[in-house]
């Protein structure tokens, strides 16, 4: 006769162990996983909400992108085709419009340029700041708090600040450029500078985030590694370059993924800076193009198709990240 309590206890410790090594349990025989059922009241309602609003909406969006939904009224799901994707890639006059619709390459290119320049500079600046803040300085908390402060602001608010800073007559950036003999320069409406100006403002807002992630990474490195390098007589720069920075790979990857996704969401910033859906061709990114096509032009299905492409881009970056996290058992 087995004591039901020991059984229960074993069951629990079994599944506990299973969690740490990330997979199967020894309960393969049980038809009904009781803990699944008993914990369902807790995870199922949130899961249904996420399932409906995120995954349901994504699937619906894919279906919508295959329709000709345009203007007022409701979508017609009876005739599905990939016309919108053909238009997105090659341009042309779609069946749902009399006007020529341009392909997405311009905004796709801007998206990539913004994404790469923004993320790389953010990471570089964040790393330097993290190393500087990690030198056992006084007022460390104050410095950290100040560097992260812009991140608590809305894209809409930071866009208003930078619109002012970039102003050609009274903006601080132009006062500075004038003082060093470069300026005043029209920035916000200048096709050559627009995207760089947006990237710079976003770097101001989010480099503090990269610093926080790197700082956590630096703090996780055993003190011994620093000391060993010192004993070997390595210079500070050499020590960081050869020994410390290679150990920050995990921090780099996770910060990079988050920053990349931030840059895909820069819509709010552009909308606020340019007071609407029209940032102009040299600062148009996919996120802006999609919302403009759908909500300003009423080309709902075409907007959905662009959204699917944006989603695929995000997936290509995020899926490998989540997969490696899963394999390492860090989820």
């Amino acid at each position, binding site marked *: 006769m087995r004591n039901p309590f020991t059984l229960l206890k074993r069951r629990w410790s079994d599944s506990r162990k299973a969690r740490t090594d990330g997979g199967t349990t020894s309960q393969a025989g049980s038809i009904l996983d009781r803990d699944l059922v008993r914990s369902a009241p807790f995870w199922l309602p*949130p899961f249904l909400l996420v399932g409906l609003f995120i995954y349901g909406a994504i699937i619906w969006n894919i279906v919508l992108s295959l329709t000709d939904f345009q203007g007022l009224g409701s979508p017609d799901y009876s005739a599905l085709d990939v016309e919108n994707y053909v238009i997105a890639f090659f341009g042309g006059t779609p069946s749902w419009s009399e006007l020529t619709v341009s392909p997405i390459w311009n905004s796709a290119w801007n998206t990539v340029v913004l994404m790469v320049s923004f993320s790389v500079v953010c990471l570089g600046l964040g790393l330097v700041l993290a190393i500087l803040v990690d030198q056992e300085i006084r007022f460390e908390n104050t410095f950290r708090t100040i560097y992260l402060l812009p991140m608590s602001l809305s894209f809409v608010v930071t866009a208003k600040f930078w619109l002012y800073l970039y102003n050609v007559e009274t903006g601080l950036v132009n006062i500075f450029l004038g003082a060093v003999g470069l300026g005043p320069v029209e920035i916000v409406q200048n096709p050559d500078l627009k995207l760089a100006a947006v990237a710079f403002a976003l770097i101001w807002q989010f480099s503090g985030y990269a610093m926080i992630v790197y700082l956590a990474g630096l703090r996780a490195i055993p003190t011994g590694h620093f*000391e060993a390098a010192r004993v070997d007589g390595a210079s500070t720069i050499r020590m960081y370059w050869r020994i410390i920075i290679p150990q920050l790979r995990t921090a780099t990857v996770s910060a990079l993924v988050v920053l990349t996704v931030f840059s895909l969401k820069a819509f709010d910033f552009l909308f606020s800076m340019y007071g609407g859906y029209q940032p102009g061709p040299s600062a148009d990114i996919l996120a802006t193009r999609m919302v403009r096509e759908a909500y300003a032009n009423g080309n709902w299905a075409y907007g959905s198709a662009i*959204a699917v492409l944006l989603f695929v881009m995000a997936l290509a970056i995020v899926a490998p990240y989540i997969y490696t996290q899963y394999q390492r058992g860090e989820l």
Partner: protein
Amino acid sequence: MSTETGRPEERSLFGYSLPRLGLYAILAGMTVFYLIPIETGLMTAITSPETYTGQFPYLPPLEPLVPNTGQFSLASWQGALDGLGQGLVNSLILVVPATIFSGLLGSMAAFGLTTISWRGQVGIYVLFVAGIFIPYQAVLVPLTQFWYNVVPLRAVFEPLAALPLVETYHWKLVALIITHTAYGLPICTLLFRAHYKKLSDEMVEAAQLDGASVATIYRRIILPLSIPMFAVVFIYQFTQIWNDLLFALTIVQFGDAAVVTQELVGIGVSQSGTNFPLRMAAALLAALPTLLVYVVFGDKFAKGVAA
């Protein structure tokens, strides 16, 4: 960690070595870089629009003591309050319930997927985590369809508008609350799960042996231990929802239910009058709640974003 050990400190000034002083100079320079946009905005916002010259936007308005800096005035803040008032109220109606719901549901989901362990839960959890990284553009058109054509929320609110304090346009805010709750859930679940993984198993196992139900374990053990994490999650969600523009644009679109970020965009649109004191006052007013939360709970905010 001590990276300074063994460094010879021969040259020094005020008790600091020269490299140390250089370090502090760089840190101070970066402080200026991060603060001066906000500082300039604040100084401009308290300058009267009539005397604003824009020559020294970063100096406090000290006329007539310092020429060309403009005179002190809070008129722009009154203007900003008039322009954003309705938006501030709507944002507040939206942000409080949405923050609480997403935090509570996130905690429940993390509990069901972490503390109570069962086969395959990681699969469900992956779907939650992936939701953090979705570009919201991929759901916008279905969201608009859902709230405008599928759910008759407006029809529910029309008769309710006879009640005091309820207006028909509140249906848009309710739609926005549910939307923000759903899209906030992934990050809330992630934050709570990280916390619950660190909790010791022994208490839960002991309670389990005592015959406590899953609900009792949550209420009596996990919930009290979650309070520090609730602070982190609430602060993070409050900031995210208050700062959002995209969902408001696509669900509220326009009208009486416009939230503060939408109204702030509008204040800057007029190209004719470059009334920078008003624009800056409005930007700071819209940012005030998140700035306050950040200044008071900065460490918790840092914890939220670093997770």
